[in-house]
């Protein structure tokens, strides 16, 4: 782990569990001895709006918000949102994308098509060659609960970061309700293996 810390931007669509994922990452940073700030905007997006969360680990964090082009890691729970926020990432930063599309209403009414996968790849790779895809929804569905897709993504992220899995497990236990812990542990493991198989 780099001593200077990590800037994460998490993006998704309201209802995808983006905020729980950022809570878990915040606790993880604290556990690793960093100062942490986690910023999110609540309000007018219950289901269906863009949701973003900024998370910073550093010896001392001042600004809660990460400026454009300065995130080390972009964690996207939805493909279109990955493209929308790729400008947050620093050149050659790490992108982890859930290979999953949620069509916004504007596709139905506004006439702008949802970008093709090839277009999404092209735009992400303009910024970084380090783009990792995970079929988080499919994996979560196979485990019997699509709501765990967010934790599948965290498992995948864990395979890309050099952090002892014991720390991850401890923060899962801290933040996930006990009755859902086992399912989420399996989701985490499945995500970790999905990326490990590729890397």
């Amino acid at each position: 782990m780099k001593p200077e810390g990590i800037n994460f931007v998490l993006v998704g669509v309201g209802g995808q569990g983006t905020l729980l994922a950022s809570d878990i990452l915040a606790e993880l940073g604290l556990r690793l001895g960093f100062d942490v700030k986690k910023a999110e905007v609540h309000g007018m997006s219950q289901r269906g709006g863009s949701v973003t969360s900024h998370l910073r680990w550093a010896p001392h964090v001042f600004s809660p918000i990460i400026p454009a082009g300065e995130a080390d890691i972009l964690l996207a729970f939805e493909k279109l949102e990955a493209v929308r926020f790729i400008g947050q990432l620093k050149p050659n930063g790490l992108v982890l994308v859930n290979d999953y599309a949620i069509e916004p209403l504007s596709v139905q009414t506004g006439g702008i098509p949802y970008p093709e996968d090839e277009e999404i790849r092209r735009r992400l790779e303009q910024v970084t060659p380090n783009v990792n895809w995970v079929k988080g929804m499919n994996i979560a569905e196979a485990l019997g609960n699509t709501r765990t897709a967010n934790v599948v993504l965290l498992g995948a992220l864990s395979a890309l970061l050099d952090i002892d899995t014991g720390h991850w497990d401890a923060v899962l236990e801290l933040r996930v309700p006990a009755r859902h812990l086992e399912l989420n542990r399996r989701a985490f493991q499945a995500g970790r293996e999905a990326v490990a198989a590729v890397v």
Partner: protein
Amino acid sequence: MKRLLSGNEAVARAAWEAGVRVGSGYPGTPSTEIMEAFALYPGVYAEWAPNEKVGLDVAVGAAYAGRRAFATMKHVGLNVASDAFFAVAMTGVEAGLVVVSADDPSMHSSQNEQDNRQFAKFARVPCLDPADSQDAHDLTLAAFDLSEQFDTPVMLRMTTRVCHTSSPVEVGEQRENLPEPGKYPRNLGKYCMIPANARKRHPVIEARIAELAQFSETFEHNRIEWRSSDLGIITGGAAYNYAREVFPEASILKLGMVYPLPRQKIAEFAGRVDKLIVLEELDPFIEDQVRLMGIPLHRAADFTPAGTSYPVTKSIFPISLELDLAVVRASSRTAGLLPNLDTAAPSQTNGSLPVRPPVLCPGCPHRSSFYVLHKLGVPVNGDIGCYTLGMVQPLDALHTVGCMGASVGVAHGAAVAGDKERHVAVIGDSTFFHSAIPALINVAYNRSNVITIIMDNRVTGMTGHQENPGTGRTLQNQQTREIEIEPLVRAMGFDKVLTVPSFDVALIEKTLKEWLKSDEPAVLITREECALLPSAKARWVPLEVVSDKCNGCTLCFRVGCPAILKSDQMDPKTGRPLAVIDPLLCTGCEICAQICPRDAILFRSQVSRKQAPQEVAS
């Protein structure tokens, strides 16, 4: 041990530690979680009031009764509560009273961007302005002490980034054990503000604010961080973070109390740095006062930030929208405080992407009324809540949205002014209780022909499901007396009052068409639980499109439901895409099924029963 707390949670924690007995507030982003978190502590009384003015009056009463108390609200809530705020500024208190105003720079979830530090100055009330969660905790504790020491309410001014950013906080483990207060005060000269007494009190509060200014010179949360003398920055609130990160070498005067200001400390600081700037969000609140002291600021005069189209009244940093590192760096470059960059700004790669603005959720009970209102083409005056989203395409049904409770009064005003069209007001249940009751009394009493639709979704929705007087539950989820809207409205003098199920499109349309023919004031109550309430979620059944029957007529897309999508399958005759329903999003509200002219969307009773809804894991 440090705990990860949001600014809001930190305020609640500190209020508990300070021995606060009573908290009252009205939900409003970004303040809502303060009262929700406070309610969970033992030994406290916490409530949702119908509006912010009532909430502040309640806190005032508790503080008169010798118990520490606080009221929470968003910035515009203080507009509603301002009468109580000015009144208690005059009387002072028997025990600590803190007014939490959560401002929303950048208007993430608000209709305006007011800087409530101005309210503190206006009312001669000291104002504390935290920079992060630890600061929010510590300044909340300080606020209660100050309130008692100086016999004044204290404003704790939060902002969105402080409210909703989580960071580690060193908390206290003990709740302050305060002595039981004596009898309710009978001190007419102090607590009965008839003109004769008020005239005597005004000089008292002017003297009080002067004493507070003196105190602020040594207030521990007004601190100077000496570093290089090249640049000195006076800052407060969230802006402190940007000052530290953008100018790590600069000396900083960090003001925990932004009103009244420590004039000697500012003068001393100014005298020991070569260049002095003020770094603050929104209004030039500190800056104006420093300039009035005759202290020269770097680039204070005739300086126009790039990209502004209005006369500049603030130096260097923009007066509108929240600050962040990028804004502070860019403004500082323009002002010559940072070297210009050689590299270009990061390239924009997000052109021509479909936008994802907030929309009414799938299964939202407000959707049907807006679908009908759009069809009828009448002027609709909206209000503050999820249903403000009735303005967006394709529902496109609203003409005006102002502030809490405005819909009814505005519609009445347009009607009595003689506007030829028939005016409609739409308002939610919580907003009705908040401030529409007097406005509806006005409609009935002064007999305009306004049609009001009260969209009762059984909860305060947009702020994340808070209870209100219509839900029959308190903040602590205790059962209480549920207020029925119908008899209340009838008692105001409305004869035409009808309640319909929110999802009954035909009945809503028939009723409104009939009422539009008469010239009477009327109230339509549409009632159905918010689709995201657990009790409503248990009833979700995704509907299905029968592709043989659908011909791609697109009518169902006009209800603006995110669950109805264009499929890849084309109708062979029309060449238009057929509709398909996303089973993960659809709740089975049946609005689309009702309006489909070809019966191509199956109703709930026609859909083969799916397995029980998945248990929610996260």
